């Protein structure tokens, strides 16, 4: 039996008992976690969409955020390659996870003495983070489609003028403008034109807590602004 006290290298002189001292610490931590969960639950009212309609095949679903990386991964393996993302990669990952303690058998536990394991762990975290980020970015611009007039140079010029009058008080572009709202210098690379139009029509679609107000623009003026912004890349 490899109990804590008999472990080599254990130098603790007066180890704390689990009950009540350690349980108290865990309890305090649990209360903190609980409060954070309730706070988030309170602020972010869980959305409930329309009732399921099996006939509405145009609906594009999104998985929960922690499955987004996998959702994004699937996009890179289409058609006959899908089997790679559905079977091969998950099976390899699972096998690697289960076998980890049997592959990494050295006695070393320090992270600097195990560069391969450390690198693999770091790479996995970075991959998941990057795929999640990509999924979110692509999502925002591809969710929205609209019938829009083609972009002309006149539109872009007029859009820049309108942007200066209404938007630049809060939004900055190329270093000029307010700090109240996100910088839009490269908005064209992050969002498509339809998405920009949607935000102008209803700012709340991006973020329910946004302070952006509905800007009173005519359809033509809005097209001009979206034409201008969609070219800011």
């Amino acid at each position, binding site marked *: *039996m490899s109990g*804590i006290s008999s472990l080599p290298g254990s130098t603790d002189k007066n180890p704390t008992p689990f009950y009540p001292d350690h349980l108290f610490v865990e309890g305090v931590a*649990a209360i903190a976690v609980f409060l954070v969960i309730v706070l988030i639950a*309170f602020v972010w009212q*869980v959305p409930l969409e329309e009732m*399921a309609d099996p006939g509405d095949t145009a609906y594009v*679903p999104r998985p929960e955020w922690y499955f987004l990386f996998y959702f994004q991964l699937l996009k890179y393996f289409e058609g006959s390659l899908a089997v790679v993302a*559905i079977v091969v990669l998950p099976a390899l990952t699972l096998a690697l996870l289960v076998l980890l303690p049997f592959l*990494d058998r050295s006695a070393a536990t320090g992270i600097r003495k195990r560069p391969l394991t450390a690198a693999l762990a770091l790479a996995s975290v970075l991959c998941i983070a990057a795929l999640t980020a990509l999924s979110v970015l692509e999502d925002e611009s591809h969710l929205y489609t609209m019938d829009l007039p083609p972009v002309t140079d006149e539109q872009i010029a007029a859009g820049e003028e309108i942007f200066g009058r209404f938007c630049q008080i809060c939004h900055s572009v190329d270093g000029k403008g307010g700090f109240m709202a996100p910088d839009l210098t490269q908005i064209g690379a992050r969002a498509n034109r339809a998405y920009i139009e949607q935000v102008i029509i209803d700012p709340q679609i991006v973020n329910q807590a946004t302070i952006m107000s509905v800007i009173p623009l005519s359809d033509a003026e809005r097209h001009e602004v979206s034409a201008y912004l969609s070219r800011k890349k």
Partner: protein
Amino acid sequence: MNRIYQFIDERLHLGPLISEIANHPVPDHANLLKTPKAIIYCFGGMVFFILLLQVLTGVFLMFYYVPSPDHAYASVTYIRQETAFGGLLQSVHRVGASAAVVMVMLHMLRVVLTGSYKNPRELNWVVGVFLLLLVAGFSFTGYLLPWDQKAYWATTVGVNMIAGIPLIGGFLADALRGGSEVGALTLTRFFVIHVMVLPALLTIFLAAHFFMIRRQGISRPL
């Protein structure tokens, strides 16, 4: 109080059992009172706490929830709008699911970075991997239950993916759906898996996880 305990202890001889659970020493490197770095040893305990929270909120949701396509959406709407604190309750269950995933990831990272999966704890690591799969299963099955558009179509996509597995995929997908499309049978299946099958498996694997921690102790410091 003391006499009640004595009455029970004389008959069941609980003393050694209780001291086995409560009186073991916690090493300094995992003790937040002695070193702030010990916070990384907290994540596993927090996963357990959040799972308890999920059970509790889940029980209250189940008081009202009806797992049929005709009533699921209406019963969730009822919970949100008509019951006392129902909206908050559902939110906590949903946020709790996310919190559990975050804590599981942090716990796993801690175990990898401190090399805690090594001899003699290989088996506990493997049990932990199964617990990770169980948490993913809870998330996948729970997502369908509100029966809104997102629930229905996300599940359709998910099960279609399973159908893409060569040879057995078609059978697996049909078994999970109870047919060729996501419908009434899918909802009852996912509900039963979510509230019966997975909790039973979770209890068994968690018990094994905790038993091994007590038997083997918390891994020594870096």
